[in-house]
């Protein structure tokens, strides 16, 4: 496991939305997928996951259905809704703008000021 970074709630929402956009997942599956895609750089504390999932469902960005998990247990599978997809696009755009701004700030050299 690489270095773990503490993540703010807003970013957590975005990550969950992204993870789910790639295909229906249950809670543990979301955790694994995020870990997998970020190549272990991002670790979500397990206790924060479900409150975030419930919040996102309450806001209508994801929806859930009951199904059976790989090890034959009852699990809730989450999928992205249309509004959720829109929200993910918007937040991705915001994040890009923000990261560009910070990047250019950090690249500034004394003679550019």
């Amino acid at each position, binding site marked *: 496991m690489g270095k773990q970074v503490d993540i703010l709630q807003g970013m957590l929402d975005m990550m969950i939305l992204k993870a789910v956009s790639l295909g229906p997942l249950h809670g543990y599956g979301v955790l694994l997928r995020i870990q997998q895609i970020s190549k272990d750089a991002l670790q979500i504390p*397990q*206790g924060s996951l*479900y409150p975030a999932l*419930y919040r996102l469902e*309450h806001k209508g960005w994801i929806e859930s259905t009951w199904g059976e998990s*790989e090890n034959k247990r009852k*699990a*809730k599978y989450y999928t992205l809704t249309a509004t959720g997809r829109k929200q993910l696009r918007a937040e991705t755009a915001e994040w890009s703008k923000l990261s560009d701004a910070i990047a250019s700030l950090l690249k500034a050299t004394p003679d550019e000021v």
Partner: protein
Amino acid sequence: MHHEMASHMAAYADDLIARGVPPDEAHRRARVEFGPLEEVREECRESVGLRWPFVLARDLRYAARILRKSPAFTFTALLTLALCIGLNTAIFSVVDSMLLRQLPYPDPGRLVAIETHQQSTGEDYRGFAVTGRTLEELRGASAFEIAAFSGISAGINLVNGAHVESVSAQRVTAGYFHVLRVAPAIGREFTPTEDVRGGAAVTVLSHRLWMRLFNGDRSAVGRPVNLKGEPYTIVGVMPAGFHPPDPVDLWAPLRPSRSGEGGGTNYDVVGRLRPGATLAQADAQVALVAVDAQKSGEFDKGTKIEMHALPLQREFTKNIRTPLLVLWAAVVVVLIIGCVNIAALLLVRGAARAREIGTRMALGSGKSAVVRQLLCETVLLAFVGGAIGIVLGELGLKVLKMLAGRSVDLTDVALDGRVLLISACASILTGLIFGLVPALQTSRVDIRTALLDGGSRGIAGGGRNWIRRCLVVTEVALGLVLLVVAGLLVRTFLYLHGLNPGFDGSNVLTAGISLQDARYKTAQRVNRFFDDTLDRVRQMPGVQVAGAGLTLPYEQPLNIGFKRMDGPHPDAQGAVTNLTYITPGFFEALHARLVRGRLLADADRKETEPVAMVNEAFVREYLRDQDPIDSHISTSNANRRIVGIIGDFPQANGYGSYGPLSPAPGVFVPVSQVSDGFLQLVHVWFAPRLVIRTNGRSNANIAGVAEAVRSADPLMPVASFAAMDDVISRYMSDERFQAELLGALAALAMLLAAVGIYGLIANTVVERTRELGVRMALGSTSWQALRSVALPGVILALVGVAAGCALARACVGFVSHLVYGVRPTDPSTFVIAALALLLTAAIASLLPALRVTRLNPADTLRAE
């Protein structure tokens, strides 16, 4: 949620197992890394906004626990709430339903009554009756249509074949039912041609009477029925749901005129405002009629007449309006006292819990959480208290109905929902306000101070207490006002009850008959009936003495004019006195006291000299300067010589300002010496009574008397039997009911005030435990400590009593109408009330203070 998280942890555990971790260890790590389940669940709920029912439930459970841990406070608060809400509502409901009871007619708000106010020297009279002349004037008013009825609904004799019965009849003008907008179910009401002297004899039956006589046979309309000895044709039957405020069996035409009955104020008027007219317009037109009445010469010179149009409701509540308003005010006062108590209780409790609240806030509870939790406590208290209150209220209502008995009709009174709501809201609001105050205060307080201070276990904080002291003083003052008013009403009742009856009513049976009958138009016939009947009655085995009279003692007799014919002040213009006719045996049966002279005897007949008896009050008022015996007065169509003086007995009076019962001047004439015309007139208004002194066995005697009457005249029913004692108590039942009710309220107020004082002193003891411990360790005796604790309670009560006396002094003016036999400002009432309250306060202060004597100084100093 549970399944989801369980399978999450299972999946994680499986992964760990796949990586080689032993299964037990894997499951443990999965649980630990997931985090505390309950917290996660809470957060899930919170994120969705679903947390509040759980929070609420938890707060309520905590509140219940806290309340259970301080049983004294909880019990007191619940009791106060229950009493305030429940009992208050019960009394409110009675008052409300009686004062605001809707008249059972369509659109009753448009119905008016006419009130006359007659003022002359020494007399102030308000009534709802007018003369025949005034009635005619009123018919001309454009603002309303008018009808009249006889205000006196006497029992009359009804004969239908073999069926003989005494029924209650009301005489009404044509158009009466039209004014009320209630049409007969069968047939019609009277026409104007029937409503004049000499008009056809017709009658309208009530539904109940029609069922009783004819069993619902519709062909009864058009058939004759024998009333008052004459045939009357039935022209209509009223619908089943028609129930006028006083029960009536049938109606007959009033036949108003300007003379005879119409010469005096004997017609009651009901009017209905025409569409578009207002009460103010009606009032203005009625005022003009009053001016005309004053000029008419029908009233004595110098009498001022004023007339007003009032809503009809006022006429039917005229006797009970003031007492009920007094009751209402008393109930409000009790409610205030109750709220004051609740406020004080909560303030005390708030101060005591400063420490607990400080601790909770130090442990991280936010201000809103503390406030919310205190709110829960108050609401829980309020609901439980309210529920108990409703139960108490129902109970109280039952007791009230029992107390009222026959004097007041309370059958349809139920706990009024509106009033319940108002009482509940008032109490709950008080609870909320005073329950939140400590929360809002202490959440600002420096937590550190609250914790270190140990709450208020130090020296009693004088400044903080002053609110509670004010509250106690207010309670005591209000309680005193109620006690004084109740005391006055109780004394009024006791005065009336204690009035010397002037006769012995035990074992005296009375039987009422109606001589308003075509067969009894002459004095000769009337006298023959009395002689026959009394002869038979006197021969009955259980009878000792018997007689008859037009009206009984205590009842309202006839008012009539008289003139003194000799003596130093013979009258050019006569005065008014009470008068009744009697037979020999009347006073003897009652064991009335003969003061001087002789009683009326059989020897006094039509042919012999006209005589009369008077009572002591008459002598005191009119014959002071002459020897009453052998003086002459002219009254009821004869110049009479006074032959005897009888002892006073209380009488209800229809004129003057004698109060509800008092020994007023009265004249007694023999029935053998009055004229035909006089008898015909008085028998319209009064039902004469046989007065029989028996050996006590009432049922046998009643049957015997009924038989005696039947033998003398088979067509004469006995209208009613009553024991003389019952007649007497009926005249005091109103005052008794009022005294009982207000007495109960005053006792309640006193109890609540005592509870308030008790609470204050008990709390002082707790607060000052440490201080008192120190004092006692330093040598103070238990008694000194006790005194220092209990004394403030008594002093506060003294201040309250003083304030209350001043307030009560101002308030007694409002109840002076209801108070008789005692001056409203009489000091002894105040003194007794003050002493009672002070005694209660002293006990309420001493009881909790006694705990001080059990204080062990060593313990208190140690406990810190």
